[in-house]
Each structure stands twice: as C-alpha cells, then as structure tokens.
C-alpha cells in the first residue's frame, strides 16, 4: 500500500475517524492493529521478520533492565557494607552480564539485516573474486525477500537496545506498546528513525480531538503530497529517461541529471517525511524532524547536520561516539601520536572513526558499491574541508566580504553543486558509468541541448516544466518563510477566506497537476528501497 495510493488515503481517513471516536485508552492499541494491518497488506511474508526483531529486542531489553534494577537494589541495600573496590567489582560483573545479552541480540538482528539485504551482495563479490582467480565454481545466489522498512525498524530497535543498555531509557514493560514503537506505520517505510525516549512521550498517551492540531497535521500531509506527486513524480519521468540511456544522455545532459535528481530527491524524501510527520501530528503524536532546510547549507558538514537528521544523529550517537571513545581507538590514538606527533597523531583516529561511519552510512543505503563509494566520497570531502578549516577561518577573518550576502549565497550554491555531484552515485549502479557521466559534463559538445528543445523529448512537456518551476519556487518561498518560524502558524494568522483559499488551492493543485496516468509512475518513495 503506497503512500500515494487511494487505498492508503482511505485507510488513513477511516483510521483517523476511529481514532477520535473510540475511548482514548484504546487509541494506541488501535494504532498497533492499524500498523500490523498496513504491514500485512504490504506483504504477509514480511511479518515474521518484524515480529522477530520486536520480540528479541523487547526480551533482551527486559533482561538488561532486570539486571540493572537488581544491581541498584543490591547496591542500595549494601551501601554501607561494601567498599569502593567491591562495588566496582560487582558493577563490572553486572555490566558483563548485560553486555552478553546485548551483543547476542545485536548480532542476531544485524545478522537478519545482513542476510536479507546484503547476502547476495557478498556472494556477487565473492564470485567476482573466484572468477578472477580462474575458478569455474561460483556460489549460487540466495532467494530472499527484503522486508519493507527493515533498515529503518532495525536501526530504530538497535537504538532502543543501546539506550536500555546504557541506562538512558527504561525498558518498556508492555510488549504491545513496544511493538507499536517498532511498527508505527507512518514512519515504518522511510523513517524518521525515532528514539524511544522521545516517541514514548506522545505515542501511548490519550489524545483529545484538537481541531488546530489535526488541521496542522493534515496541512503538512497535503504539502507532502504536493512535493511528491506534483514535483518529484514529474521529475522522475525525465530523470529515469536520462539515467536509463547513458550512451545518449551524457555531456550537457549530465548537468540536467544532477540538478533534476537532486530536486526530485528533496521533493520525494522531504515530501514523504511531511506526510509521515503530518499524519502522526494529526493523531497528536510528535515525531522528530528529519530536515532543516538542507539546501541552504553553506558547507557539506552543515548539510549533513540538516539532511536526514535522524539517520545522521543515529550514526553519530550509536556508532561514531562509541567507536571514537572505545579502548582500541584510544590505543590507536596513543600509537599514532607517538609515531606522527601530537597534532597529526590525534587526528588519525578521528578520521578512522569517520571513515567507519561513512562506510556504514553508504552500505546502509544499499547493497552495492556505488553507495559505498558515495559514502567514502562524502568522507573524503568532509575530511579535506576539516583539514582546510583553519585556513578558511583565517580567510574569513581577514576579508570582510566573507560576511556579505553574495558570498553566503555563493557558499550555498557551491554546497548545492557539490551535493548534486555526489548524488550522481545514487543514479547509476556502475561506478564507471557515474564517472563517465560526471566527467562528460566538462567540455561537452552538446550544450545546445539545454536550449534547442531536446529537454522536451524526455517525457515532459513545456507545461510540465512550467509546473516544476512554479513548484520549486513555491518550495523555495516556503523554505525562506520557515526562517521566520512555523509557516503553518503564519498561514493560521491570515484571515479565514485567505487561509481557505490556500488550503483548497493546494488541494486542487495536487488533484489537477499531480503526475498521474500513463507515462507517470506515482511510484514508491526513493527512500523506501533503503
């Protein structure tokens, strides 16, 4: 059931109605039933996977919580009798017990993810290695299904597991409540990757019907659909035409591919997240924001603080920090400082941790080399920027014009161009093709295609381009208005007839200008596949 299907709209309409009719205590159980129904409709064969993750993580968290509770009770009861050393020994022993269960559950769930998502990728690479050594025997591929949203719900579950292990949240006692946290249907397919500590504040509490809140939520849903069906799905037509035929669409077309795909990705992903967050908001549930006007970033580093925030913060909190402060990494720090000196030596472990994070971020996006190279390309740019940071700072301090608006705009456009270039790795599975397409843009002999009407042969008409342009300008305006605070609040303060015209106008635009019908594919969201 795609977010863009009539079935989904009907499903949500019935759910929302029921949600506010039934007794408040029954609201979260209703959401659990709805979430499992949603997942069942998506594919009954996926259910055992999500159920396995839910149960194993739930039980492990409960065991770890019980160890932690017993530890606190014991230490409290024997506060006076135990020496500092004895307390430390006891704590270490309990910690090892928790660690055993934690690692077991972690390996099990990462194992499931690795098997369904990455097994064939490993087999492909092993086979390539075997054939290159002249072997005629190759491994056969595994016939596996990739459960919907597995990367998202596995990461969300592991985040919870780590939080309970660290003692930053208490393990949920009610297995059904925990099951809802993992399966909450609006966020199941493309995030945002929620934190239990944040989500549990509103997910299980009773919610009264609040017309402003419901209205605001649905307004955001409407805005999400606008971005998805009017802009992203329309650009999808041109982008897929060009990507599908690299031998024809190169040179000047490469620039068009990078630009169109980057806008499509933004409209698609932020649109999907708007639908998710808006839908949750209409039910009184607060999800964390996933974007903060990312294309206004002045550097790639800033971009990664503002794009796909829930994934980036997940990797930061649950991978970058633990790896960076781990004992082996401390050992590497000491060693590298001895060998390379204080200044260089202490940066090596930092870069090593970052490389691990970016490799993982790449492979999280998909089981193929183009995503790994994409991750490592991001890593390379970020590390080069990091090294040049003192130089930038001197430059910025010395020249006053670096504080001016034109220079800020230049930095924003430069970052946008860089993001466009990096996004090209998303488009082609083959890295060689990505390289060819990228470099063909420089000194191409076909720049005339940008102006001679060739772009009208990509499956889009002049009207389509006008709609895209107006849509992009509208997105830009909304992003600029966001700088002054909530756009929905700003609209809410307008006289009722004007507000009504905005809502109704947006609705009509989606109905009349959405990319539907033959030639269009109101397809799944790009991030559904990750």
């Amino acid at each position, binding site marked *: 059931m795609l977010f863009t299907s009539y079935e989904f709209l009907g499903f949500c309409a019935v759910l929302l109605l029921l949600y506010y009719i039934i007794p408040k205590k029954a609201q979260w159980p209703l959401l659990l039933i709805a979430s499992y129904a949603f997942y069942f409709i998506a594919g009954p064969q996926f259910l055992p996977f999500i159920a396995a993750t839910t149960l194993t993580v739930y039980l492990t968290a409960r065991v770890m919580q019980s160890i932690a509770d017993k530890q606190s009770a014991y230490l409290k009861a024997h506060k006076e009798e135990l020496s500092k050393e004895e307390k430390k020994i006891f704590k270490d022993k309990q910690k090892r017990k928790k660690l055993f269960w934690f690692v077991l559950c972690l390996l099990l769930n990462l194992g499931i993810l690795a098997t369904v998502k990455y097994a064939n990728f490993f087999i492909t690479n092993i086979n390539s290695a075997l054939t290159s050594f002249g072997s005629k025997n190759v491994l056969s591929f595994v016939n596996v299904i990739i459960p919907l949203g597995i990367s998202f719900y596995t990461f969300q579950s592991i985040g919870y597991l780590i939080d309970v292990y660290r003692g*930053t949240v208490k393990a949920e006692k009610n297995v059904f409540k925990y099951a809802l946290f993992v399966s909450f249907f609006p966020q199941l397919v493309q995030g945002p990757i929620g934190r239990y500590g944040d989500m549990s504040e509103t997910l299980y509490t009773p919610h009264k019907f609040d017309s402003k809140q419901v209205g605001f939520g649905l307004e955001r849903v409407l805005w999400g659909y606008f971005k998805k069906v009017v802009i992203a799905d329309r650009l999808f037509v041109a982008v897929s035409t060009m990507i599908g035929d690299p031998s024809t669409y190169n040179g000047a077309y490469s620039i068009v591919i990078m630009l169109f795909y980057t806008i499509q990705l933004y409209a698609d992903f932020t649109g999907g997240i708007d639908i998710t967050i808006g839908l949750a908001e209409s039910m009184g549930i607060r999800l964390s924001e996933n974007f903060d006007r990312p294309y206004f970033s002045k550097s790639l580093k800033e971009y990664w*603080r503002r794009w796909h925030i829930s994934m980036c913060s997940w990797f930061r909190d649950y991978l970058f920090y633990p790896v960076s402060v781990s004992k082996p990494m401390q050992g590497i720090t000491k060693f590298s400082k001895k060998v390379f000196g204080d200044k260089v030596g202490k940066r090596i*472990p930092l870069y090593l941790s970052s490389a691990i994070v970016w490799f993982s971020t790449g492979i999280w996006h998909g089981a193929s080399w183009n995503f790994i190279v994409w991750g490592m390309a991001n890593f390379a740019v970020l590390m080069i920027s990091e090294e040049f940071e003192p130089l930038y700072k001197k430059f910025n301090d010395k020249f006053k014009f670096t504080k001016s608006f034109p220079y800020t705009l230049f930095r924003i456009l430069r970052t946008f161009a860089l993001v466009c270039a990096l996004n090209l790795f998303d488009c082609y599975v083959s890295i060689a093709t990505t390289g060819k397409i990228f470099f063909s843009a420089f000194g191409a002999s076909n720049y005339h295609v940008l102006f001679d009407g060739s772009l009208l042969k990509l499956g889009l008409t002049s009207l389509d381009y006008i709609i895209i342009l107006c849509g992009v300008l509208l997105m830009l305006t909304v992003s600029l208005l966001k700088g002054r605070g909530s756009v929905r609040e700003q609209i809410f303060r307008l006289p009722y007839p004007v507000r009504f015209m905005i809502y109704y106008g947006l609705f009509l635009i989606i109905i009349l200008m959405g990319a539907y019908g033959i030639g269009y594919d109101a397809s799944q969201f790009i991030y559904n596949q990750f």
Partner: protein
Amino acid sequence: MEKLLEILTDLHSDVDFETEENLIDDGILDSMDIISLITEISEEYDVTITAKDIIPANFNSAKALYALIERLSDED
C-alpha cells in the same frame, strides 16, 4: 577548571567558554570537536568518558563539562 578552559579555547579561540551555555544546542561544538575534547580531557584528568556520557547536558557549557569530570573522577 582553568586547564579545561584552556583546552576548550585551544579548540575554538573565538568562543567565551566561561559564559557560553549552549555549546551543543547552538552547534558551536560538533562531533569532531567533542571527540578531540574527550581525548584531551582523558589525558589531562585521567578519567574515562564513555559514549553514554556524550549528551548535550554534559557538554553544553564548561561548567557542565567540569561537573562531569569531577563526577567521573569520584567514580574512579
């Protein structure tokens, strides 16, 4: 505390760490800064800061950070 302020100033000479209270929330310290800081602090104060301790509340101000160091020293 003075040594800590020195470490922080080495990292960002343009920030007044004695008064700044939103080092994380305002994005003054990023994840790379935090790890550099932890390396320096571990050496200087001989404490072990784990990933569990890396939360905004502990890193938002020099005062909070110093309180963390003292707490960890006591635990050790």
